[in-house]
């Protein structure tokens, strides 16, 4: 039996909520001057402040505060006129200070919303709060058979990440979206990511952990109070956000159908199996003993400054999309298709870079979408820029590349990170239009495959495909297949018409 989300919503109503952590793209840490560069040698970006050594005095990073307020403004939040940092006390080696500097009951930004579009429907996701805190160090568990924590004999800690500015964005619960809940969750994180990218406050790379998501899910019977929620952590791609909600809906429905009750717990999303597993259940209720951070003075953003930040916000993705729709002049169905594939902005940017709309659309919905799918990522996450795609389209239009060669060039760009023209030059990608060379290759193919040649001469024209393949192979895909076919038929004395 395979239950579906539709089966679940026939009996239950889901409520979802999302907590998103974003590492800001500042060059220095939140409370000290250590570098935030990713991938540095372990423990080379640490100092007295981020290690919490006695007597160290933290000072907040002005750029991080500005970035957080800009995020709040882009999410339609009110900005606090006065607020403080707070200590969140806990003992865990990922924080050498034994507390995380965070915000508690006085976040920088509150009460906003973000509209997302799913299936032609606009869903308003309420934003509870946006607050600023610091990231933790990175643990490596050693000795466990699986590399996972259970069975680990000890852990190794790198504090380079500890103290990097981290913004937490918390939604209000989102009820009333029924079977769309998984898609709404994904659409929210996608839109949020695009906003953060547009603001330029983070590189928002989920695979590197600069954007991380926790997903809350509960089910209740219609007319009854909201159910007990679970919090799923470890959700590290947009696709996983959607899968995590779907998986929790199915699991909780099965528990409730069986007369059981859902436990309030932390669960971990398993990327491989696509389901969630229970995390460690806490021995006692979490008690972080928050108190106002005495080493940092309160923040009181000047309202005039906040208004100037608001005025200077860039055009946000939703507005840009609306403008793009009009500018591209695509029809609703086309737009919906591009929107579902998450390529509207990419197509628009490719058009901006000089490509015709139709070609840009075909590339992003065609070969590039396939590649993204095969990798389990969004098209926007492919390491190729709209400008590079526009260049490919230009080369095809000029006859320098065939579509097949242009695809090879895409592969090359993705593999090497080099620019299109570099890949084309290095790999010698060029349509062979020298008919003499093609004729020679055709004669070789005919000579090497006499039986096939005989069939074609005898009228089985479809058999010529094998010869075309041989020529394409010998010219390393650089010939125009239609031209090769014509040359082969001509040399075999077959007239198709």
């Amino acid at each position, binding site marked *: 039996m395979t239950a579906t989300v539709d089966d679940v919503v026939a009996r239950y109503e889901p409520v979802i909520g999302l907590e998103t952590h974003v590492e800001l793209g*500042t*060059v*220095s840490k939140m409370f*000290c*001057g*250590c*570098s935030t560069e990713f991938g540095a*040698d*372990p*423990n*080379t970006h*640490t*100092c*007295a402040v981020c*290690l919490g*050594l006695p007597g160290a005095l933290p*000072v*907040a*990073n*002005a*750029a*991080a*505060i500005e970035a957080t307020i800009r995020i709040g403004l882009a999410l339609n939040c009110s900005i606090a006129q*006065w607020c*403080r940092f707070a200590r969140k006390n806990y*003992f*865990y*080696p990922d924080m*050498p200070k034994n507390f995380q500097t965070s915000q508690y009951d006085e976040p920088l930004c509150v009460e906003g919303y973000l509209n997302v579009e799913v299936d032609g429907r606009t869903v308003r996701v309420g934003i509870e709060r946006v607050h600023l805190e610091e990231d933790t160090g990175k*643990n*490596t*568990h*050693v*000795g466990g058979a699986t590399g996972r*924590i259970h069975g*680990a004999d*000890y*852990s*190794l*800690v*790198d*504090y380079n990440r500890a103290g990097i500015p981290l913004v937490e964005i918390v939604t209000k619960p989102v009820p009333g979206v029924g079977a769309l809940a998984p898609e709404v969750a994904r659409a929210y994180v996608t839109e949020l990511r695009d906003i953060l990218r547009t603001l330029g406050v983070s590189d928002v790379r989920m695979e590197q952990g600069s954007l991380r998501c926790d997903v809350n899910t509960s089910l209740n019977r219609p007319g009854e109070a909201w159910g007990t929620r679970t919090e799923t*952590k*470890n959700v590290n791609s947009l696709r996983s956000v959607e899968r995590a909600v779907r998986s929790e809906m199915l699991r909780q429905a099965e528990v409730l159908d069986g007369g059981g009750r859902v436990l309030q717990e932390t669960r*971990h999303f398993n990327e491989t199996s696509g389901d969630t*597993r229970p*995390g*460690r259940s806490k021995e*006692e209720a979490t*008690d972080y*003993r928050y108190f*106002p*951070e*005495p080493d*940092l*003075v*309160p*923040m*009181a*953003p000047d309202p005039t400054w906040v208004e100037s930040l608001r005025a200077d916000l860039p055009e946000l993705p939703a507005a840009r999309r609306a403008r793009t729709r009009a500018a591209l002049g695509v029809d609703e169905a086309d737009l919906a298709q591009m929107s579902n594939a998450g390529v509207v902005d990419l197509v628009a940017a490719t058009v901006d870079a000089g490509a015709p709309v139709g070609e840009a659309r075909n590339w992003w919905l065609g070969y590039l979408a396939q590649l993204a799918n095969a990798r389990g990522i969004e098209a926007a996450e492919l390491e190729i820029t709209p400008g590079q795609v526009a260049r490919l389209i230009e080369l095809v239009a000029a006859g320098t590349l065939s579509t097949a060669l242009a695809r090879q060039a895409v592969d090359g760009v993705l593999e090497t990170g080099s620019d299109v023209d570099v890949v084309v030059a290095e790999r010698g990608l060029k349509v062979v239009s020298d008919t003499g060379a093609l004729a020679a290759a055709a004669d070789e193919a005919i000579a090497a495959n006499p039986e096939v040649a005989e069939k074609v001469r005898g009228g089985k024209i479809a058999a010529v495909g094998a010869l075309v393949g041989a020529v394409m192979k010998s010219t390393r895909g650089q010939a125009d297949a239609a031209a090769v076919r014509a040359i082969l038929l001509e040399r075999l004395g077959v007239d198709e018409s």
Partner: protein
Amino acid sequence: MPDFTEDATPTGRISREDVAHLARLARLAVTDDELQLFASQLDVILGSVARVGEVAAADVPPTSHAVPLVNVYRADEVRPSLPRAAVLAGAPSVEDEKFRVPRILSEEA
């Protein structure tokens, strides 16, 4: 100087269980005798703080800082970190240039 002794009678503001809970959160080993002792001492301290609260009038807002400063920030500029050898010198144990710590339970898998 207020006379703390007049408040020495336990008022139940803090119980042995509260102290045990706090000790557990702070990873402090506290004996049974100490639980009793600390409960009554903390009770006196809380009583004294409560008296300060009574004295503070409506025109004295609660504060977490002794100096009336706001918006003390630093520019987003990289400054030199400590040499790694110095950083790791304070670690109880080191492996692969990382702090080696006992096996830990985690919320992350």
